[in-house]
């Protein structure tokens, strides 16, 4: 990550009424502080930090795997049809 020395800090604040929704996971602190016109969690340094892993229920995981397997199977059918049509 290359940093630049030519950038000067210009702390600023958006006018009243600005809002912020992301909490916690994305590193947001609920404020609308701007540094160099960027939100704090918008900097490369902040977005380089991974968001915490979500906990999915067993039912959700099963549903996702079911959808994934189904999509792969149907894709294989489309590819098979594609190859068969070439002959």
């Amino acid at each position: 990550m290359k940093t630049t020395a030519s950038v000067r800090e210009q702390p600023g604040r958006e006018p009243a009424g600005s809002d912020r929704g992301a909490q916690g996971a994305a590193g947001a602190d609920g404020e609308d502080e701007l540094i160099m016109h960027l939100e704090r969690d918008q900097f490369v340094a902040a977005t380089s930090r991974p968001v915490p892993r979500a906990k999915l229920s067993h039912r959700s995981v099963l549903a996702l795997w079911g959808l994934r397997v189904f999509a792969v199977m149907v894709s294989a059918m489309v590819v098979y049809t594609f190859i068969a049509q070439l002959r």
Partner: protein
Amino acid sequence: MAGSQATVSPPLQPPPLTEEDAARSSDRSRVHLARLGGRRWSLLWLLVGPGILAMLGENDGPSMIAYASDGAQYGLGFFVPFIPVLFAMAYVCQEMCMRVGAVTHRGFGELVLQRYGSVWGWFAAADLTLTNLVTLVAEFVSIRVGLAYFHLGALVAVVLGLVLVVFTFSGGRYWRWERIVLGMALFNGLFLVAAILVKPHLGSIAGALDFSPFPGGSFNTLLLLVASTIGATVTPWMIFFQQGASADKGMTPRDIGHGRYDTAAGAVLAAIFGVGALVAGAALLTHGGAGIQGFTGAGFPQALRRVAGGAAGTVFALGLIEAGAVAILTISASTAYAAAECVGAAHSFNTFPREAALFYAANFGIALVAALVILIPGAPLLAITLNANVLATVLLPVSLAFMVMLANDKGLMGRFANHRSTNVIAVAVVAFVGLCGSAYGIDSFLLTAHVIR
């Protein structure tokens, strides 16, 4: 004094700044000033981009050929209202992408990978790479078809596409890349000009708004039409692209309103231009759709020239070149976002190639591979072009499911998470797309394997 000093919080230290931050900050300063000055149109101009690019990028070569083929084979009925309905569905999906990108400042690939695990992240990236590669081949075919009208060969199509990709890299600024591609994308309107040039009967267009007559033919043909038309409006790359571009542009939750205008404008323009291609293609209906299968030659534009005059053919050919060129840029960009996000490398047009080697290499690399495919003698370009949209439709529901999950994730989205009404529509879209794609895939397989007749 000592007590009061102890209560004063130390000032927050600014994060270390990169050149990417500086470039994004420069763009955001203009947004900030426009907002402070109450300059509404200026603010809109600064914030539009990802939505229009995603929508008009999806009005790509194979999509426009699919619309025109629908018109040539079945006329205006059913498809005139069906195309806007599909773009309304696309709006629902793309609005979620924009919102998640603006709130989290992260791309789709990295969020899926970090939030739900690397297995799902890599699956999503693999889906994207496969569908993007097939689609990019179809884009180069589209440029080749357009250029063939002007008696130019495949090599010119390859060089043109690749030079464009490299040209847009210059500058190391997302803003510049976006404005170049946006300027090119507006020429998607050529399909509307082509529609006007074929002098359609306005009454027949208005009469088609009641979804009739329903397309005839076999059940499998109908499924193919529906699946490929869906694949012409909503695809996995659009999800990766709009979320990644919204984050790269530096959009914030305050910009969500303008992001919605941007996405809606893109959907409306894409629907109008898509219907334009359909109307132009319908001019061939009474002429038996002559020449529409000529993908290796000038095909469609030449057929249109014979029926509606040289101007209509020329405009349609130029439209195909534009559609293919813009899609090469946006689809390659979506691949680059996904690849770099998944390995945690720099992924921004606000960087130079030396700082984000993987991002730019993936961007150019996938375009190069696709370009080389169309130079292979005897490559099944027609089959690839026709199947590109179908494959995207089949793989789309998985990506859409994760998008809905992310947009509902209150830990990430806070009060910007999906409302109940949005979820109802989004789940209906996922179910509809999944049903249509899988119905075509299964029915075609059973027919090909001679299990059914």
